[in-house]
């Protein structure tokens, strides 16, 4: 039995197979509509994340399966002090697979140690969120046709952005990926990413999106939160540099893709939404396909 706790749990080959399966699901949804008949997914959400939870639930329903679970900690036994280990032992009796979201780092790992069903980490605090990374990889590979030989720009809050760190970790495994890290100096990627993960790889750190955008094949946008800045003036001075609008899109390649883990606030202007290069809503759809593929793999049904 396998779990998915970190985006690097799958080797490059296993990942490639998983993405192939997701693409087959995309093309032949009918073929998979009943593969999970009679199976149950438990969504154990100790903190609310409606989009992630609905994506998992839609995935399971698309496969013909059912869903049980809770959406916040206060509606669960956790509010009565039950440990994650106890909860997962009990859920193992009810469901065939589970997706767990928890505010504390390592919670899904704790669950996996006592579980008799596969555990999917649906986010553990600021630590890992592997299905987001799988979604990003599937989106890039489906729309670009490859994960190697790309120049990817990661823009916004690169310091606290967990999705960005995971994506970098996942992409360094492919040939000839160039990273352009676009952020205010206050929000650069943490030193361990620069010194351990990106060591020996082709990367540059810049502060200006406008200058960087022409060379990018992928632009991965993230939110720059006001609270991350020391003072209001810095925030106001910086924030426009990290807002993607039509004017900046004019400088980009014709086949550049714009991704965003969503929800966005204002870092992508709505005027960009109708641009064919805007891929962030397609990304949501790929998120469902990749979760379907993942459920099938972990249940050993495909």
């Amino acid at each position: 039995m396998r779990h998915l706790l970190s985006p690097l749990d799958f080797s490059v080959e296993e990942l490639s197979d998983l993405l192939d399966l997701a693409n087959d699901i995309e093309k032949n949804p009918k073929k998979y509509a009943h593969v999970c008949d009679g199976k149950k997914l438990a969504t154990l959400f100790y903190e609310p994340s409606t989009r992630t939870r609905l994506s998992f639930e839609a995935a399971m329903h698309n496969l013909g399966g059912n869903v049980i679970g809770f959406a916040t900690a206060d509606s669960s036994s956790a509010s009565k002090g039950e440990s994650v280990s106890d909860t997962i032992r009990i859920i193992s009796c009810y469901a065939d697979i589970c997706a767990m979201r928890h505010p504390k780092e390592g919670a899904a790992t704790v669950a996996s140690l006592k579980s008799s069903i596969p555990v999917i980490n649906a986010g553990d605090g600021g630590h890992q969120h592997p299905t987001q990374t799988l979604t990003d990889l599937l989106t890039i590979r489906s729309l670009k046709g490859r994960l190697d030989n790309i120049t990817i720009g990661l823009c916004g809050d690169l310091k606290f952005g967990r999705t960005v760190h995971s994506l970098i970790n996942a992409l360094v495994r492919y040939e000839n990926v160039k990273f352009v890290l676009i952020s205010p100096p206050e929000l650069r990627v943490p030193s361990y990413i620069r010194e351990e993960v990106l060591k020996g790889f082709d990367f540059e750190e810049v502060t200006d999106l406008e200058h960087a955008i022409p060379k990018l094949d992928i632009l991965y946008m993230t939110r720059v939160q006001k609270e991350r800045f020391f003072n209001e003036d810095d925030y106001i001075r910086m924030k426009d540099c990290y807002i993607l609008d039509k004017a900046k899109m004019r400088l980009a390649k014709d086949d550049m893709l714009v991704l965003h883990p969503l929800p966005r606030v204002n870092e992508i202007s709505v005027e960009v939404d109708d641009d064919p290069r805007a891929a962030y809503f397609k990304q949501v759809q790929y998120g469902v396909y990749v979760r379907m593929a993942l459920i099938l793999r972990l249940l050993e049904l495909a």
Partner: protein
Amino acid sequence: MLNVSGLKEGFVLDHIRAGKSMSIYHYLGLDKLDCQVAIIKNARSSKMGRKDIIKIECGIDVLDLDVLGYIDHNITINIIKDEKIVEKKTLKLPKKITNVIHCKNPRCITSIEQELPHVFVLTDEEKEIYRCMYCEEQYK
């Protein structure tokens, strides 16, 4: 030459960094064992200047000394039988250590679930880096 006379069976932990013997005494749980323990502090050493030594009289399968590899892998373990050194062991860093060091990451699941064992895994042998098995935070 290390004097081991008077020790029927047990261990002599030699080359302990001076001043560290008491913390090792606690790490090994010797305070809970009903056996004879001698602690020598600040012994003269040609190699180290000053060192500590611990002599423990007990069955040689009673104590798990692997954890010493984490605390100080320069310690030499002498295994004694019938007042003679029968084996000298040098220590390696253990791959995994349980409930010796504790995760200090306030965002770690161990911060709210007190009964979880604190397990650290050796992730970089060269740099001697241990990470919490749950949150992967490096122990410093």
